C-alpha cells in the first residue's frame, strides 16, 4: 500500500488557501471602508488644518499651505470673549459632569437594578426612554415646561417664586442644558453595566452575602472588580470624548427660540456650526490641536486602568 504524501500535502495547501481566501474576502470591505472613512478622512483633516484658500491675481481661488489657522486658534483661545474659549471651558464642564457625576451614578443605579429593587424592569425601560426617543422630542418637551410662561414658571409663580428665564439668561443657559444632560443621560452606560452584572456568577454573590458583607462592600470589592473590563472601557471611552463632550446645543439654539446664543457654545457645536457655514480649515486646525492634546491623556488613563485591573477570571 502506498501513501500519496504529495496529494495529502496538496489537499492541506488547498484547505489553507481556501481558509485564507475566505478570511481576506470577509474582511476586505471592512478594511477598504476603514482606509477611506477613517484613514483618508484623518489625513485630509491634517492637510486641511495647514491650508487656507486665497484668491490669486487672476481671480482663481487656490489652496495654500500655512500655519495661519493655528495662529488664529491660539489668538482666539487667549481672548476672553472668543467663542472658542467659551466652547473650550463649557466642554470641560460637560466632561466633568459626564465622567465624575454621571458615571458613578449610572453604575450605582445599575447595581440596584441588578439587585432587583421593586419595579426594576419598569425603571430600566423608563430610564432608557431619553436614549431611545429623539433628542428633538425630549428637548421640545423640556422647553415646553421650563420656558417663560411654561408650566414650572406658572407653578412657582403661584407660590410667589419668580423663576428666572433660565435659557435666555447667558449665565444660567449652560447650567440648564447641563441639567438636561444629567436628567436624560443617567442611563447612558446602564446597558453595558447591566449586561456585565447579569453575567456575574451567583455563587460569588451568595458567598459574599453569607459572609455578611455590606452592599457598599459588595459593590466596591466584588461587583466592580468583576465588571472591570466593561467599567474601564466606559471610562476610557469617556476620556476619549474629553473634548467632544457637549449637550444638544443645536436643538436648544433653534432660531427665534429665545435661548442665549452667548454662553452656550461647546467645541463640538462650534465645529459643527463652522462646517455647515462652509468654513473647513479653521475647525480642522482646532480638531488637530485637541486630538493631539487628548492622546497622552487617553493613553495615560488606559495605562492607569490596566494597572488597577484586578484581573478577575470567572
Amino acid at each position, binding site marked *: 500500500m502506498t501513501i500519496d504524501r504529495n496529494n495529502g500535502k496538496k489537499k492541506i495547501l488547498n484547505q489553507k488557501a481556501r481558509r485564507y481566501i475566505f478570511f481576506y474576502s470577509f474582511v476586505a470591505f471592512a478594511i477598504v471602508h476603514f482606509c477611506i472613512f477613517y484613514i483618508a478622512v484623518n489625513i485630509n483633516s491634517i492637510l486641511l488644518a495647514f491650508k487656507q484658500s486665497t484668491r490669486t491675481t487672476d481671480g482663481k481661488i487656490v489652496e495654500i499651505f500655512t500655519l495661519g489657522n493655528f495662529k488664529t486658534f491660539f489668538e482666539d483661545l487667549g481672548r476672553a470673549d472668543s467663542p472658542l474659549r467659551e466652547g473650550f471651558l463649557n466642554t470641560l464642564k460637560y466632561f466633568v459632569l459626564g465622567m465624575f457625576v454621571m458615571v458613578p451614578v449610572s453604575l450605582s443605579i445599575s447595581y440596584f437594578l441588578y439587585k432587583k429593587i421593586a419595579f426594576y424592569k419598569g425603571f*430600566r425601560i423608563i430610564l432608557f426612554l431619553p436614549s431611545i426617543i429623539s433628542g428633538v422630542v425630549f428637548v421640545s418637551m423640556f422647553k415646553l415646561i421650563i420656558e417663560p410662561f411654561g408650566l414650572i414658571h406658572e407653578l412657582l409663580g403661584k407660590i410667589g417664586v419668580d423663576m428666572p428665564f433660565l435659557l435666555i439668561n447667558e449665565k444660567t443657559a449652560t447650567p440648564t442644558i447641563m441639567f438636561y444632560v444629567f436628567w436624560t443621560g443617567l442611563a447612558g452606560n446602564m446597558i453595558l453595566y447591566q449586561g456585565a452584572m447579569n453575567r456575574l456568577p451567583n455563587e460569588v454573590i451568595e458567598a459574599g452575602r453569607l459572609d455578611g458583607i455590606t452592599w457598599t462592600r459588595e459593590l466596591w470589592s466584588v461587583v466592580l472588580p468583576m465588571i472591570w473590563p466593561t467599567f474601564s472601557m466606559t471610562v476610557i471611552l469617556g476620556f476619549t470624548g474629553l473634548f467632544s463632550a457637549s449637550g444638544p446645543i443645536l436643538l436648544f439654539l433653534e432660531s427665534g427660540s429665545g435661548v442665549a446664543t452667548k454662553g452656550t457654545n461647546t467645541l463640538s457645536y462650534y465645529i459643527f456650526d463652522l462646517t455647515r457655514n462652509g468654513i473647513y480649515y479653521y475647525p480642522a486646525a482646532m480638531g488637530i490641536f485637541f486630538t493631539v492634546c487628548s492622546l497622552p491623556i487617553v493613553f495615560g488613563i488606559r495605562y492607569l486602568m490596566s494597572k488597577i485591573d484586578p484581573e478577575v477570571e470567572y
Partner: protein
Amino acid sequence: MDAVIKKRKFKKETPVRKRKGFRIAKIIVFALLAVHAFSLLFPVAWAFLYSLKSQVEATTGNINALPKQWLFGNYADAFKVLEVVENGIKRSMPVLFLNSLWYSIGAAFLGIFVSSMSAYAVAKYDAPGRKVILNVVIVTMMIPIIGSLPSQYRLFSSLGIINTPFYLLVFAGGLGFNFLILYGYFRNLPWSYAEAAFIDGAGHVGVFFRVMMPQAVPLFTALGALALIGAWNDYTGPLLFLRSYPTLSSGLYILRMMSARVQNMPVLYAGILLSAVPVIVLFAFFSGKIMDISLGGGLKG
C-alpha cells in the same frame, strides 16, 4: 456567662443590621428613581395634552391648562399639514417617515452585516494580519478624533455621496463597536458545529450563513434594534449630509425652528410625538435582549 451570651447575640445581629441597612438603601434609591421616572414621563404626558389643543388655545390661551377641546384630529392633521420645504420642494410627514425608514434600516443592516463578517473571520480564522486588525480596532476606538467633520464633508463631497442614499455607505464600517461585541460572541461559539458542517460538505461561506449566523440571531436583533433606534433619532447627519432627504428627526427639527406664528404648534407636537412611537415599540419588544449586550468577551481578546 451573661457577657458571653451578649457577645454572641451581638455577633448574630450584625448581618441582620447590614441587611436592614441595604433595605433602607433600596427604599431610598427606589424613591429617588420613582421621582426621576415620573419626571421623565410627565413631560411626555404634558406634551400629549398640549398636542390636543387648538392653535388659538395654544398661542393665546393658558398653555398650562387642560385642553378645552380634545382635538385628537391633530394627529391626523400632522400627516396632512406638516411639511418641510427644502430648495422649493415640499416634503410631508409620510415622506419624512419613509426617509426615516430607509435611512435607519439601511444604516442598521449595513453596519451589523459588515461587522458580523469581519468579526467572524477575525474570531474564528487564524490568518496573517488577524491580530493587526484586532489591535487596530481596539487602538482606534481609543484615539480621540476631534474636528473631523470638515474633512468628512469635503471627502464625502468629492466621493459624490452627499445628498444621495449612497451616504449610507458611511455606516458600513466593519471595525467599530459592533465588531468588538460580535467578535466576543463569535469567539465563544463552539467550533464543533462548524466542523460538523464541514464534514457534511459545507464550505466556509455556507458555515457562516447557515451555522454561525443563525446562532447569533438574538445578538443581531439587539444590535440591530440599537442601531436602528440610533439612526432613527439621528438629526445632525441628515441635516448636514442628506438635506434633500429629511428624516422625521431632522425634518421636525427644521419645523421647530419655524416661528409659532406660522406653525400650528399643537399639530407640530402631535407630529413630534408620533415620530417617537416606532422606536418606543421597537425598544419595548427588544429591551430584554438589548440589556444583555456585553463588552466582556470582545475586550479580553
